[in-house]
């Protein structure tokens, strides 16, 4: 049974006041708050388990290594990876995508190669590919979208015919909320033997991911957007790719043997995990994934859909409101503007009323350019938000709009 009050109780950060007003936190697409279990997991780690891992023969190191590798197995099972060593721990989605771009790029790019992205990518899933293209004198292809924020699948097919070396698409757009038909898009790419990386940063907290069912070649996300700590994320990659790809960073556990002339590299997953790993954050991520699994994706999705529908209906009554991102398949993200009001002004006044939203281009400048706007106000909901908070928010938006017009 989904018990909203019980869930809220687990999140200490929700119960603060800002400017003497109860915090309404709608900046979840930027980062979510963390349940007590994660805070306590980290504290426990430093009190009782702290150790450098993998090569220590002593007890603490053994225990910490065990826990770390168990977290890897759990993450693998969470997204249904075939093998635990297909999970590469990174500091976040951005690093995961940079790793993939760098290493896969070095393996596959040739002068003039192309890479295919979409018109709604976060900079973290755009700039690494763009820079790779620049490096190889290649071409960045962009799948267009329509005014509702939906991918143009027709155009996608034609772009695939240019045989890009990889397709990089976001599962869910952070700026528009669009949930892309990634499974179909992957199938279409695979029909032409083109591998696909899915940026799952905005997906993992909201929807069940099955990398085998999707059949994606890579999948990336950050823990901190899914109730986990900062500093942890992962890159899932199909074994065949990870085996073939050259390492990304050097030093520490990723090395097998070293002489001054030559270095050989460790097996998967260690080959891609240079330096002392962030054990604390990886254990925190595991706890967060368990929190999600225990809460249940279905319950989460049902609740968030309710929030999305309710908020959309309430906001629609505000004169002059414009929504950006109106795809039928949409996550609990609402990007909007009111008349000519600058998003910065709206955000500033909402803040003063205790409401945390994000304003600006949301690291998706090309999306803003598409709509020819400087940015939007974005409210994004998590499992712990309430319709009551939405009421407060909508009233605040009305008040601010009045002040600003």
């Amino acid at each position, binding site marked *: 049974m989904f018990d909203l009050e019980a869930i809220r109780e687990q999140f200490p950060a929700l119960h603060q006041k800002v400017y003497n007003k109860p915090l309404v936190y709608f900046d979840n697409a930027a980062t979510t708050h963390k349940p007590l279990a994660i805070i306590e997991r980290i504290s426990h780690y430093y009190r009782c388990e702290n150790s450098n891992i993998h090569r220590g023969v002593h007890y603490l190191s053994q225990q910490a290594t065990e826990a770390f590798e168990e977290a890897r197995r759990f993450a693998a099972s969470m997204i249904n990876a075939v093998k635990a060593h297909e999970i590469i721990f990174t500091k976040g989605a951005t690093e995961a995508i940079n790793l993939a771009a760098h290493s896969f790029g070095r393996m596959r790019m040739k002068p003039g190669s192309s890479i295919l992205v979409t018109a709604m990518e976060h900079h973290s899933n755009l700039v690494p590919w763009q820079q790779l293209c620049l490096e190889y004198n290649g071409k960045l292809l962009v799948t267009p979208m329509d005014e509702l924020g939906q991918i143009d699948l027709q155009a996608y097919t034609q772009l695939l015919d240019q045989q890009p070396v990889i397709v990089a698409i976001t599962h869910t757009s952070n700026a528009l909320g669009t949930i892309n038909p990634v499974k179909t898009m992957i199938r279409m790419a695979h029909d032409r033997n083109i591998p696909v990386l899915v940026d799952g940063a905005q997906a993992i907290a909201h929807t069940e991911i099955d990398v085998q069912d999707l059949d994606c070649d890579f999948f990336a996300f950050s823990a901190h957007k899914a109730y986990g700590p900062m500093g942890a994320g992962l890159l899932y990659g199909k074994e065949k790719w990870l085996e073939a790809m050259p390492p990304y960073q050097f030093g520490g556990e990723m090395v097998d043997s070293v002489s001054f002339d030559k270095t050989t590299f460790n097996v998967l997953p260690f080959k891609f995990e240079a330096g002392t790993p962030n054990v604390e954050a990886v254990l925190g991520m595991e706890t967060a994934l368990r929190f999600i699994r225990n809460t249940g994706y279905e319950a989460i999705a049902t609740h968030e859909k309710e929030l999305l529908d309710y908020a959309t209906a309430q906001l629609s009554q505000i004169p002059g409101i414009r929504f950006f991102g109106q795809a039928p398949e949409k996550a609990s993200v609402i990007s909007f503007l009111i008349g000519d009001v600058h998003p910065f002004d709206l955000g500033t006044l909402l803040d003063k009323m205790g409401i945390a939203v994000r304003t*600006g281009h949301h690291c998706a400048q090309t999306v803003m350019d598409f709509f020819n706007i400087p940015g939007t106000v974005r409210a994004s909901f998590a499992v712990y938000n309430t319709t009551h908070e939405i009421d407060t928010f909508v009233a605040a938006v009305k008040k601010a709009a009045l002040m600003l017009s």
Partner: protein
Amino acid sequence: MTITDIQNKISEEFAVFDDWIDKYNLLVEMGKDLPLIDARYKTNNHLISGCQSKVWLHAAYEDGKVIFTADSDAVITRGIISLLIRMYSGQKPEDILNSDLSFLDDIGLKDQLSPNRSNGLLSMIKQMKLYAQVFKLKSDTESNH
């Protein structure tokens, strides 16, 4: 009026309000009233990048005084700009350089000037002082001749 006089005047105007909302209402009004920058200066050349709201600033030096005009695409930012222009425009370079802005704390607008408010105001103030510096140097050099 000296800069300090103007600051006191502004403080008084805000002091009548207890509620943040009235202060911001005043700020918005001031923002709306801001005399616009001459259109030909609203170019990238005069743009001060502030990430979320844009700020354009122009400075001229006339009779030993700095004349500032400015604009922003966000009205709250414009409101604060209008305060800054009231304070600094028509003042002597050295007075601008010696001024401080702590009075903004008192009137409850401090966080609009925090380094990460992303509204470009801090960069704008830096730029204003830079202009003052340049004009001062220029006039020092000239008077030496």
